[in-house]
């Protein structure tokens, strides 16, 4: 962010002197602008910064009566417990693997869809199909839970209806942990692919027409057009989206997982991610110590990952760095 703005030429250079009177002058000068930022600053102070000291709970044996800083200090014992029980490893594994799958499969499908949409010439066909592809993005994850219930439940599910009609035996999907990664990935892709493809589609639209014309004159086939013109020009978009996604790789899509799986413990081994686990600890066990510990671990791990990624990217090509 910062690097980009600095490169810009300042049309009204303010003479910067390090003395106090000029600082004060600047302050008076930008009074209105500061006031305009105040509501947002207040918002982030209240809802993002004020809870930060609360992470201290991770190191205490928190109880409601003594409060955050009055509860007894227990050092790293909360973390120790999470590591020893194997829970932290399971949650980390699931969260990372799901996000990797979402990112890799998601981007491949989005690019493929964008390339194919670009081939479609019928105007109304394109408009209508695009509008329908966006629909899933507009609905709440609760509705996705309803859809999953409609399709997958044992007694009346549409899938079992189909199986019964073709003479097979209905299956108890809600107790088969093994296939839930596939179901969750399909649901995630169903909701986000149409929407995600717009960015790539716009990038393809931005390619200079003369490139395609030159390729056609040289007798390039459609495959060559894709391979040598379209895909290379999607590379910057791809890398930027990838980096953004890497920043959130430790954060799960809570709503989706919760509405699909909920409190169904038979599926936890393959479906429990950090968010769902934390939510359950708070809502059904009133366990604030472990949930804070897991949350803090998630934040620190995520922070370290973003920093490392950004550092590596900055060394390779600083244009792509996030900050």
């Amino acid at each position, binding site marked *: 962010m910062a690097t980009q703005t600095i490169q810009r030429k300042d049309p009204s250079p303010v003479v910067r002197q390090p003395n106090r009177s000029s600082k004060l002058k600047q302050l008076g000068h930008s009074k209105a602008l500061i006031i305009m930022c105040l509501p947002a600053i207040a918002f982030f102070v209240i809802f993002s910064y004020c809870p930060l000291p609360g992470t201290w709970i991770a190191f205490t044996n928190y109880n409601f009566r003594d409060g955050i800083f009055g509860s007894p200090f227990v050092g790293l014992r909360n973390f120790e417990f999470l590591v020893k029980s194997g829970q932290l490893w399971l949650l980390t594994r699931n969260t990372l693997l799901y996000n990797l799958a979402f990112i890799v499969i998601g981007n491949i499908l989005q690019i493929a869809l964008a390339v194919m949409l670009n081939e479609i010439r019928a105007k109304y066909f394109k408009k209508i199909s695009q509008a329908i592809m966006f629909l899933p993005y507009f609905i709440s994850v609760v509705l996705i839970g309803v859809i999953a219930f409609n*399709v997958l439940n044992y007694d*009346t599910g549409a899938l079992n209806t189909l199986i019964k009609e073709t003479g097979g035996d209905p299956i108890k999907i809600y107790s088969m942990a093994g296939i839930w990664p596939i179901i969750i990935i399909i649901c995630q892709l169903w909701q986000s692919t149409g929407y995600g493809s717009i960015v790539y589609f716009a990038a393809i639209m931005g390619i200079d027409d003369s490139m395609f014309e030159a390729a056609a004159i040289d007798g390039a086939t459609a495959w060559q057009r894709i391979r040598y013109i379209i895909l290379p020009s999607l590379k910057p978009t791809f890398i930027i989206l990838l980096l953004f996604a890497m920043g959130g790789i430790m954060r799960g899509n809570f709503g989706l997982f919760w509405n699909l799986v909920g409190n169904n413990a038979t599926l936890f081994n393959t479906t429990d991610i950090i968010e769902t686990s934390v939510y359950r600890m708070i809502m059904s066990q009133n366990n604030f110590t472990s949930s804070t510990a897991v949350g803090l671990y998630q934040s620190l791990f995520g922070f370290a990952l973003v920093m490392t990624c950004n550092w590596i990217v900055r060394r390779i090509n600083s244009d792509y760095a996030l900050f």
Partner: protein
Amino acid sequence: MTLATSQAKPAEKRTKPSATKIKLDRSDIVLRGISYFFVTLFTVFCALPFVLILSASFSEESRIMRDGFSLFPQGFTFTAYEYIFRYPRVIIGSYVVTIVMTAAGTALGLFIIAMTGYALQRRDFFLRNQISFFIYFTTLFSAGLAPTYIWIARYLNLRGSYLAVFLQLLMTPWLIILMKNFARSVPYEVIESGKVDGAGDFRIFAQLVLPMLKPALATIGLFLALGYWNEWYLSSLYLGSTVEFKPLQYYLYNIINTANALKNSMAGANVTITQLPSNTLKMASAVVATGPIIFLYPFVQKYFVTGITVGAVKG
């Protein structure tokens, strides 16, 4: 990557393809065939679940119990909808809560985000980078759910208050960055001309800049509206069962997940839970709760593509 705005422009222009002038290669025809096939397939895949829910909501409960859900309505009846609207108090209350929150939250959030985004891209604003980082940092490191929950529920005392939901959805760092990127496209000369005419910073913003940010306002407004309309998570944390009228999606969430919610929402219906057509009721509730938000899209479509393109590129 600030070329985003210029990228989206040719989107409309290039429907007449340059390639058709030159004769089509065989590979072009094959690719086009594949494209039509898969795009159709994916479109159908996206639409099918909606058809499933709709047809289930018009089905007869007894036939659902016997044959299960399917793509076509099993019989055709409005029974489920009649149940919902026979004692409409709860559902109408939920609608009012959701609509008020969505409208007020979108308007207020949009105003604050626009103001902040505008101020943060002003090159002559000396605190610009510091404030930007202050906001951006919250995406890098956060306290996590438990401390936030304790802070809001215990210290701010917002448990059971709609404010806990309303306030937290007002803005996100990402939306502010998006607005900032949009606001960059406003030429500095516009601001300068305002200054020359003696307008204050706030007046320049409200009268000169804001009208130029229409696509941004439409896009970000849509994101905010979706956030409010589809909200169920914060409600489940902070409202729970303390309020009579739950936001729509949380109302739906309860109907799907707890057997009693279905009966309670039909308050006054003198029936036992087994008498309720629960399967079709769930589906009809889903249709009612999703409702109008789906129809919002065509109104903002024009700006939306530009919007997310700008947003996806560098913040």
